[in-house]
């Protein structure tokens, strides 16, 4: 059989790389945990564990914790990006991709495209779990779509940071530890699970500096008022800012690898 190559197409290459990435996520239990099992488990666990103590019941706690778990989930899904990049570098598969007649940037671009889908799955998983636990937001469905899009975008912006960490770190295990630590600190030292004013003074200052606090506040405001609040605009601009700073840095670090 004659092997005919079609015209080399950047878009097709990036799609193939993204497809490969998603296959890996689905086949690898670790990655699968991050995007699907963890949001479901944490939502149920924290909801029933803290609901009674903090809000006097699960139902009353849901408007607080659903945006909180949502934020935690996008952080953790985004952090998977760095681990995967580093693993691909360590196993030598990135090198192999680079010996193919494809555009140099395709493996990285494919990774970040797949991140969007991973974030989408994670976001939908957390919101659906909340829904099954009795969470009924008072806004129409359009606003739910808005918070999904906002969360995915913020998560995607953050995955550029983790991708950079992945490219610069010494080993995949190191990336994993960094990811887990930042995920825990950023999600717990925020208003994700508790009202900030119950914290000691120092932790209050930290929580108020934590960007995740604003992401969570923005989501809560959208869900409460059915309008895109000032905080939401600030969060969106913050996300754009991260992409503008970290995308070039990450591409630079990626190109430096060879």
């Amino acid at each position, binding site marked *: *059989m004659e*092997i*005919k*190559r*079609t*015209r*080399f*197409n950047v878009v*097709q*290459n990036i799609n*193939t*790389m993204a*497809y*490969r990435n998603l*296959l*890996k996520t689905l*086949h*690898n239990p670790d990655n699968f945990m991050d995007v699907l099992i963890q949001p479901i488990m944490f939502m149920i666990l924290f909801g029933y564990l803290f609901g009674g103590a903090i809000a006097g019941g699960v139902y009353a706690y849901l408007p607080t914790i659903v945006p909180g778990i949502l934020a935690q989930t996008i952080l953790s899904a985004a952090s998977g990006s760095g681990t995967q990049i580093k693993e691909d570098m360590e*196993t*030598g*598969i990135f*090198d*192999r*991709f*680079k*010996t*193919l*007649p*494809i*555009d140099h940037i*395709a493996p990285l671009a494919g990774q970040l495209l797949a991140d969007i889908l991973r974030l989408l799955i994670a976001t939908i998983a957390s919101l659906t779990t909340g829904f099954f636990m009795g969470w009924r937001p008072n806004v129409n469905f359009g606003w739910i779509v808005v918070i999904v899009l906002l969360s995915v975008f913020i998560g995607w912006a953050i995955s550029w940071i983790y991708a950079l960490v992945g490219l610069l770190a010494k080993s995949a295990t190191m990336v994993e530890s960094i990811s887990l630590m930042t995920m825990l600190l950023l999600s717990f030292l925020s208003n994700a699970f508790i009202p900030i004013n119950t914290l000691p003074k120092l932790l209050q200052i930290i929580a108020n500096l934590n960007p995740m606090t604003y992401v969570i506040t923005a989501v809560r405001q959208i869900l409460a008022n059915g309008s895109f609040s000032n905080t939401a605009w600030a969060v969106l601009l913050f996300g754009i800012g991260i992409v503008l700073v970290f995308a070039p840095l990450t591409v630079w670090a990626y190109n430096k690898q*060879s």
Partner: protein
Amino acid sequence: MQDEIAIKVDHLTKIFDKQKVVDDVSFRVKKGEVFGLLGPNGAGKTTILRMLTTLLKPSEGNIAIFDYDIKKESKQARSTFGVTGQYASVDEDISARENLMIFSRLNGLSKDVARVRAEELLKEFSLEASADKSIKDFSGGMRRRLDLAISLITRPEIIFLDEPTTGLDPRTRLQMWETIRGLVKDGSTIFLTTQYLEEADNLADRVAVIDHGKLIKIGTPDKLKHENGESTMSLKIMDKSDIGRSVEILKKNLNSEPTLIDSTIITKFKETKQAIDGLSELKNANISISNLTIKEPSLDDVFMALTVGKN
């Protein structure tokens, strides 16, 4: 077109942290030949291979692959070759078929062609039975076969093999050699690195010996052996009283100092004629011998001779 050049390397140098890992290496690989790059660990083999396959930028010097300058036309150059790495770099989490599909698509094959090609390669490399299993459960040999299959998707004109049999058991190694010989028959040009002299001897048409980043010798395995190695002759003298005379005769004819173990004489020589002269003089002197063996120099001897005192 007997001497069409597939790979042209001129004054290739790579400097890491002020240290010359590859030092002014030049060679040509002809189309259709198997070219072996032979050297101990850390000699710079993999660094050269990484530069040839566009993974690493040379500090100095030029590389052309089928006349594509790898600096200016790296994408075209990459479309002419396939690479199989030192550590089988296949995707662990996905199946053999999915690996082949993804690499086919990345190589620009349409979905239908990719599917057919994946099926062909699975059959060719006897991986059909495990096509949809996770690669985590694959044996070293299966992994290596899949790895090779992936680099053959587009039937590239040049195949780079980085230590293709390192870590394989003897049986799988022989199978791998068979596969590589098959590729040669199909007309592929093969560039392989190896630390096994036996492998270079068995597979390569020409061998470049490299040590400490420098090219030491280049030529056919036979030529290298002939120029740099010595044959060994060993024989037993039947009558102990003849030993003294025999040693003298062999020393004179073979022009080297024999070693004596009991009544067995072991001696080195360069030319076959010397050995024949020595043996006929023994016969004329009525000395009877037994257990005569003559061993050709191995590439191991050559390698030791070339790199001795440098490590």
